[in-house]
């Protein structure tokens, strides 16, 4: 069934103006020419009292709501010129729908104005965010106290299952990333150290870098992308589906029931994963040392041991990772709990959880290093 293009003829007579519609008035057909014709006619038309009669030139024409919108719009424009639209020659169904639409038609709203923030506005926006964040953190500390007092709503089973999800389930990706980090560092280091004929110091380089910095940092970045994002998405969608509100109506604080087990799980698991990543990273270095540089495993391990005589090197990495775990957990949960009320806002929350976590991790790492240097532990 082919459609005939829309057409409109305007015939002016002494007493009336006839609008003759022809073709098929359906959504799938272009109507630019008709619109242009109407605009031209209306701009040239002089206000008059004559009636405008609308009719179809054949009764085979198809129509849908695009015709109704066209007619209603034209009627409004004609009435501003003092002309009256007469639809009585159109099919009954069209007339029914026109009167039905008129009954229901209200005033169309204007687009909402979204003002951009002035510098003063930004200051207040920022300060309200700060107070929101400090309230969140304060409530978290209080929830921790209630946990120590044995009054918390946190369930141990939740903590254990989240520990498994963010700890044991992350082992494959942590293994891959830290092994390749150790391997890459060994390759890069060997090229430089070869110039001084000191390639065995690759073992020192890899082990020290892994335990002091790279182990904790790589684990933290992986956890921010993997677990922090999942916390934000999970809590955010719970908020959208009013699950958090329903907890609240039962008198169960979301902070204790949802946030505390997640943050504690990361606080516990990140150092353990870091320790594991340190070992795997050193094994990555060992692989290059034995396979590419022809050291014996024993020789490599002895060199590693001499580099790590002071256990503080390992502890300092672990202390950092405790802080990183806490940052990831808190930021992920905060972004989830304070997500907006639509799915686009949820996406933004997840992105921002990852970006803010990684930024804070790097800043925190630098501050630890500065602090350790100042107190003479480096």
């Amino acid at each position, binding site marked *: 069934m082919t459609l005939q293009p829309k057409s409109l003829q305007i015939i002016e007579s002494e007493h009336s103006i006839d609008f003759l519609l022809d073709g098929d008035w359906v*959504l799938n057909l272009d109507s630019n020419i008709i619109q242009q014709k109407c605009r031209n006619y209306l701009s040239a038309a002089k206000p008059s009292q004559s009636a405008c009669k609308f009719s179809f030139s054949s009764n085979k024409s*198809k129509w*849908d709501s*695009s015709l109704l919108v*066209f007619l*209603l719009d034209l009627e409004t424009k004609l009435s501003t010129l003092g002309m009256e639209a007469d639809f009585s020659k159109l099919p009954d*169904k069209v007339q029914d729908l026109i009167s039905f639409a008129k009954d229901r038609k209200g005033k169309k709203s204007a687009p*909402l104005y979204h003002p951009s923030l002035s510098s003063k506005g930004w200051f207040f926006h920022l300060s309200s965010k700060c107070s929101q964040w400090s309230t969140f953190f304060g409530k978290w500390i209080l929830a921790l106290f209630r946990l120590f007092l044995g009054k918390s709503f946190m369930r141990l089973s939740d903590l254990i299952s989240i520990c498994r999800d963010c700890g044991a389930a992350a082992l494959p990706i942590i293994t891959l990333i830290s092994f390749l980090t150790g391997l890459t560092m060994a390759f890069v280091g060997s090229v430089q150290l070869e110039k001084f004929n000191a390639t065995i110091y690759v073992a020192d380089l890899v082990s020290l870098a892994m335990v002091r910095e790279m182990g904790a940092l790589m684990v933290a970045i992986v956890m921010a992308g993997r677990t922090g994002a999942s916390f934000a998405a999970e809590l955010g969608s719970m908020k959208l589906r009013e699950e958090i509100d329903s907890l609240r109506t039962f008198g169960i604080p979301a902070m204790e029931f949802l946030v505390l087990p997640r943050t504690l799980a990361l606080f516990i698991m990140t150092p353990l994963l870091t320790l594991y990543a340190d070992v795997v990273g050193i094994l990555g270095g060992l692989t290059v040392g034995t396979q590419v540089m022809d050291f014996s495993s024993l020789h490599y391990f002895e060199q590693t041991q001499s580099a790590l005589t002071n256990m503080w090197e390992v502890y300092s990495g672990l202390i950092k990772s405790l802080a990183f775990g806490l940052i990831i957990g808190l930021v992920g949960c905060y972004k989830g709990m304070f997500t907006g*009320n*639509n799915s686009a806002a949820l996406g933004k929350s997840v992105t921002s959880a990852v970006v803010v976590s990684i930024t804070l991790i790097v800043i925190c790492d630098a501050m630890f290093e500065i602090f350790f240097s100042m107190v003479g532990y480096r």
Partner: protein
Amino acid sequence: MINDRENSFIVEAKDLKLCYGEVTVLKDISFQVETGSCMVIMGASGCGKSTLLKCMTGLLKPAAGNVIFSNGDLWGNRDLPNEEVLSNFGVLFQAGALWSSMNLLENVSLPLQTFSQLGKDEIEQLAAYKLSLVGLSGCEYLYPPELSGGMQKRAGLARALSMDPPILFLDEPSAGLDPINSMQLDELIVELKKSLGITFVVVTHELDSIFEIADDAIFLSNVSKSLLDHGKPVEMKSSSKHAEIRGFLSRTGQGKAI
């Protein structure tokens, strides 16, 4: 197009069997929906009404059987529904399912922008017209989370209407609406059916609505997991041979074992 329906049946379910994995939800479902009529799918909670609707709207492939529209079968051999057939209908989901990052005008305009040949102004006018039909004039620039549940549902109906489809599938349209809004929605269905000749397939268990809008109805059973009866609701209420259906439609509680 909406004003030239000739065939007597516009959609037909043929020997449908619907399963979720190994679990059979419905079997041996066959019925026809007459052009320009309103067919109501009734049944107790959990009897598979929404599942049947999912199958008829291309969201769930039946384990056996097919859904036949005037321009072809919905389900071919592939797992995906026939795209040409999809343009036949609009769907209103239970909770409205509006796109929350767009305002109402954009929600209704998007299908028009994608599939019609109209200009930007016309599309906006058309979208505003559809919103006014469902009583949402003045809400064009609001976002879905800013609306009440009932308003979201009506906006969902406006979006389902956007392309002037010959068939509309509505999943519990009046659930969660106040009596006035629910009555207005029923009026709208009757008016659209009369003026635009739209065929409705409605899943509902609101009795008032059923008697107001339905020309025809089918009743699904929880126990036999099949179609129990087919006919006009008023007749089914008084003279159905199944006591459960009479109980369901007259609210006398005889329908416990449905």
